[in-house]
């Protein structure tokens, strides 16, 4: 029986295709599923249309699947210890795609209860103000990919967990002003939303520039990991491409969705 770990982290063992359990990942996934079920049970959703309910379920299941697939074996250990490119796929899943899907999976009634806790709502209002959210996401993205930070945090389970937590929280903050109806941001025009996302797609983050332009591997943990058949420098450049192209594609899809909704609402208004 392989040793049970809480979270994947950078190790110096040679890579093996032997399955290993990551208990923390399962617990987090189970807790999210339980919390979502409890939340829905406490809301009056009896008159919710069937297509809306189905879409919510698909969205939530997709978010959970992305989280589980990117954090559990084999992608979890591969990304934590051996390949920067897999680490970047994890970032896109944990820090970009799954927070958006989770927010989309929440019914309107779930947001409507927020004003019951003014302190919580106050914090949410402050951090999800579009400009603040933009900076929080991009600073978190830059810091969590900074070579010194990655090399310092990834060799421990707690550090690796912290990076994933930062990604996920920053992702929620980023998507909140675009998806969540509370607080009401009527002034955030669809054109502003499109600009908000487009800017993220085209922004050159310092870690991306370092990864793509550096002549040498910048991450110690991936450079000095037991090799899994890929040159660390090429792997790093692939990671940069995944970061940029992956983020751009997700933003592109989101821009199209916002644009279509805007067009439909304009048509309905007319």
């Amino acid at each position: 029986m392989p040793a049970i770990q809480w979270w994947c982290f950078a190790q110096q063992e040679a890579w093996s295709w032997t399955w290993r359990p990551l208990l923390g990942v399962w617990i987090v996934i189970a807790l999210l599923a339980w919390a979502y079920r409890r939340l829905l049970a406490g809301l009056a959703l009896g008159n919710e249309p069937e297509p809306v309910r189905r879409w919510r379920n698909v969205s939530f299941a997709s978010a959970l699947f992305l989280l589980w697939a990117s954090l559990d074996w084999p992608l979890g250990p591969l990304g934590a210890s051996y390949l920067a490119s897999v680490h970047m796929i994890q970032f896109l899943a944990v820090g970009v795609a799954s927070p958006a899907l989770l927010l989309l999976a929440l019914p309107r009634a779930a947001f409507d209860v927020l004003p019951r806790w003014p302190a919580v709502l106050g914090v949410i209002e402050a951090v999800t103000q579009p400009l603040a959210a933009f900076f929080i996401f991009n600073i978190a993205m830059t810091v969590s990919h900074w070579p010194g930070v990655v090399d310092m945090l990834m060799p421990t389970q707690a550090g690796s967990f912290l990076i994933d937590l930062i990604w996920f929280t920053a992702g929620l903050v980023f998507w909140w002003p675009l998806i969540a109806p509370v607080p009401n941001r009527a002034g955030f025009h669809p054109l502003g939303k499109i600009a908000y996302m487009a800017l993220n797609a085209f922004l050159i983050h310092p870690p991306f520039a370092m990864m793509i332009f550096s002549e040498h591997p910048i991450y110690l943990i991936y450079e000095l990991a037991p090799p899994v058949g890929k040159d660390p420098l090429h792997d790093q450049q692939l990671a940069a491409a995944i970061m940029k192209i992956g983020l751009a594609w997700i933003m592109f899809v989101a821009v199209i969705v916002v644009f279509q909704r805007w067009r439909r609402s304009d048509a309905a208004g007319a």
Partner: protein
Amino acid sequence: MSRFETHRRELLGPIHRFACLAVLVVLGCGVPADGGRLGELRGTPMHVPIPKPHLVFTDTEGRRFDLRAQTEGYLTLVFFGYTHCPDVCPIQMATLGAAFRELSPELRSRIKVVFVSTDPERDTPERLRKWLDAYDGTFVGLRGPIEEINEALSSMMLPGIAMLPGGSHDEPLIGHPAAVLAFDADGLARIRYGFGVRRSDWSHDLPLLASP
């Protein structure tokens, strides 16, 4: 010691070297005999230069290879390891190989990289050649009796080979020195590169070491 701890030690190296140099200057010992070049390098300086060992082994083509005679006048980087090694050997060779390929052909022609197998039974000439070719086709692979390898390691004040039980696939693991020794053209090693040395370190040091 983990590879991260090793690297931390490498990072502490310059501070340590500076402290040692300060003590030497205070004691009136002056600058090192190599004119201070060691201070610029990122490897670990050896306080006592080590002469190149006398090894006459067989290369991957089955030819006799006299280490001293056939590397005379070259910067010679010598590493003892084995191709089934799961971590240290492939990482050291990949890091060195990548930096080596970045050098100009002229600099490369002044350097010989010699990999001495510590597992001559499993490291057949074909396997050794194929393994080295993945890093660089010019790297020399040598095979010889374990006793002679241990003698050479001992002469270089390095620990000998140790058979360790159980790898991931029940293959024996072999304990061996993790450092690459850099022998100058005069046949003396004044610096070594332990596990944790990075491609950027090699890229920085190789031109300095190989320059006439």
